[in-house]
């Protein structure tokens, strides 16, 4: 640990690293210092004045030694004015008061100023329920207003860009969004215009935020000034259940929270994890979850009936019985898995299919921040379980040549031409595709929001995600389907993981609860992400 200093906050001894500010030091001992403009990942602006605390230093005598009082303790000289906690660093022997009447009075004053021109339209404000202004009004405010004049009116319901709605009346001018856009997103486009109580947040004309990280300013906005347009008026946050999850849209695997109510996911927000995504996530990942509640989701196992000439729904038992019978009779089985499947599913898939198996690469452009070129969240998991073999061209050639007649597809699409050549095509997927259209058997799967499982991200970090909502129809998690096809006896996902931990040395000694909410780094020899073969991708398309 770096050099530390000892100080006292509200009578509690704190050992904090040198250079830490008082808000963070107080957090170490569980004391909350209210603040608006301060954000641990941004530079310090110090303009909200909410984090004022009373600080004092030991009185020094002529030899620069702390002078002792009659009780044998150092005499503390308190500063005449309060200091802001965010920009005051810890010092040896410092004494900090955060709850004295003096501090409380200052907070009341700050709250009163912040609320002078605040429109108080909480009933129509999306932030209500997770608004720092509401929370601190209750905790530290006066509870009544002395302001009788007309409030300043500013632009309301304006669109900052297509994704973000700006309500300037609600803004408390903390400048977090300005600093985020400048320092993290890298587009210095927001700023304040006008002066005094007419100060208004706006973007430079024609310079609306257009990075892939804009929506993070909605998260860090402590009030309802910046709100997400496509979540606007959708649900009140107090109805939403928070489920810890992992973003399945690229190999970064940003830690997220899924906000759902009664089987519908309404939004996805980032979750703090300094080892992966700090506290941000990209808009591409954040907004790409609508397929969960797509009305066309597959809800029941079905078979393309030779008798009726159309799809007929089956029970799971019947589907399993028919497929296992046909798989036993079939010769070579090939499998196309998905890098979006969980590690457990890939492990079972490998067991079911055998050697002739591969995943389909999905790539895009990396942006050098969070978004990776590899858009599969679990390429490393596929490698670890032996599903990523690079045999995809071989499989596809085999189908074309008529050598491969039986194919199981897990969560990927297939060309119509290829699908027609197969004798037996079993597709496990969530949404209708070309492959499910031509498949002999379609088995409905679940999205990442409906099952538990693990992903291994591009840096070999094993991360766990949880089920937020129940599956649609009689669809069930893929690991259950694969267990049934294998004839195995895993009763829960924990059993699959336990078997995996026994088989794969990289996972030895781990279980789902040991992974924790933040994941664990795995020690895998080979580099997890290899350059994706463009040819393989082209063939797959």
């Amino acid at each position, binding site marked *: 640990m770096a050099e530390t200093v000892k100080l006292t906050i509200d009578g509690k001894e704190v050992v904090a690293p040198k250079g830490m500010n008082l808000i963070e030091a107080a957090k170490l001992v569980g004391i909350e210092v209210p603040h608006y403009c301060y954000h641990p990942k941004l530079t310090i602006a110090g303009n909200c004045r909410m984090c004022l605390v009373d600080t004092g230093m030991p009185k020094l005598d002529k030899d620069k030694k702390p002078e002792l009082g009659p009780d044998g303790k150092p005499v503390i000289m308190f500063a005449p004015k309060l200091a802001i906690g965010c920009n005051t660093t810890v010092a040896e022997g410092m004494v900090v008061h955060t709850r004295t009447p003096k501090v409380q009075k200052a907070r009341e004053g700050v709250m009163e100023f912040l609320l002078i021109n605040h429109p108080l*339209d909480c009933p*129509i404000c999306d932030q209500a329920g997770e608004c720092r202004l509401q929370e601190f009004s209750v905790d530290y405010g006066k509870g009544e207003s002395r302001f009788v004049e007309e409030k*300043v*009116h500013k*632009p309301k319901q304006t669109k900052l860009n297509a994704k973000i709605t700006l309500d300037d009346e609600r803004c408390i001018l903390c400048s977090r969004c300005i600093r985020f856009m400048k320092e993290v997103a890298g587009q210095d486009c927001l700023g304040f215009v006008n002066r005094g109580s007419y100060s208004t947040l706006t973007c430079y004309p024609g310079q609306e935020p257009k990075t892939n990280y804009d929506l993070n300013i909605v998260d860090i906005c402590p009030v309802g000034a910046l709100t997400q347009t496509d979540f606007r*008026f959708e649900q*009140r946050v107090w*109805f939403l259940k928070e489920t810890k999850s992992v973003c399945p849209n690229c190999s970064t695997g940003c830690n997220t929270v899924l906000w759902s109510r009664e089987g519908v996911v309404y939004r996805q927000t980032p979750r703090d994890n300094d080892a992966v995504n700090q506290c941000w996530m990209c808009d591409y990942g954040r907004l790409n979850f609508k397929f969960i509640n797509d009305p066309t989701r597959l809800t029941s196992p079905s078979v393309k009936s030779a008798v009726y000439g159309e799809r007929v729904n089956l029970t799971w038992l019947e589907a399993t019985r028919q497929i296992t019978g046909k798989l036993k009779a079939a010769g070579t089985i090939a499998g196309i898995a998905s890098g979006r499947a969980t590690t457990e599913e890939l492990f079972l898939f490998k067991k079911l299919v055998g050697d002739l198996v591969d995943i389909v690469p999905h790539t895009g452009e990396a942006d050098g921040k969070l978004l990776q070129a590899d858009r599969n969240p679990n390429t490393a998991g596929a490698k670890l379980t032996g599903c990523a073999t690079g045999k995809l061209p071989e499989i596809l050639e085999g189908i074309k040549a008529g050598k491969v007649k039986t194919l199981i597809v897990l969560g990927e699409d297939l060309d119509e031409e290829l699908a027609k050549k197969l004798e037996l095509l079993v597709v496990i997927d969530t949404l209708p595709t070309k492959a499910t259209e031509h498949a002999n058997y379609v088995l409905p799967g679940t999205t990442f929001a409906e099952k538990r499982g693990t992903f291994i991200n591009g840096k070999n970090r094993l991360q766990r995600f949880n089920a937020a909502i129940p599956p649609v129809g009689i669809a069930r998690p893929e690991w259950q389907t694969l267990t049934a096809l294998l004839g195995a006896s895993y009763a829960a996902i924990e059993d699959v993981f336990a078997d995996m931990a026994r088989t794969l040395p990289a996972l030895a000694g781990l279980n789902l609860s040991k992974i924790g909410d933040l994941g664990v780094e795995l020690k895998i020899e080979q580099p997890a992400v290899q350059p994706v073969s463009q040819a393989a991708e082209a063939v797959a398309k």
Partner: protein
Amino acid sequence: MQVQRPKLTFWERTYIPQILKGMWITIRHLPMKKFTRMYPEEKPKLLGDYRGAPTLVKDPEGRVKCVSCQLCEFVCPPKAIRITPGFRADQAFDSNVEKEPKEFEIDMLRCIYCGYCEEVCPEEAIFLKNDFAITGYKREELRFNKQKLLELGGVQPDSIWKWKYKGAPPPGTPIGPVRDGKPVEKKAAGH
């Protein structure tokens, strides 16, 4: 255990004094004030704070007062209320309110007339009025929707006019002092 029966006198065994006593009580009550109300022909007189069926109200300008903040849905103990939030029409006279319920349903079979919804409402949009005999032939009839609730609620007088001057002046208006929804002309600086 053996119950000891009281020994009755001859007159007691004839029951005649008891019958006469009972009839005397009945006769005594005949000229007295009647307490029985001939419901349903005769309706009860309800006090002002009677908690009947919850209803939605409009203000005298015809604005639906509910802004679908969903606090009533949250506070409702039997979870009888279900709101689908939505937007106010852009061109409407009350578009500055931004939000209004797309659908507002109260399941009257679930409602327990506790009045929490009225109490929690920050907009004074929901009132428990005097309707108490809520009946129907089908369950669906007793799921009151927004239209039905507004019909029942009618217009409520307003003394605050919370939203009348709320919201920003039209776009293009310079940001500056405002009174009664109109920008205040700046006086020439007097030196």
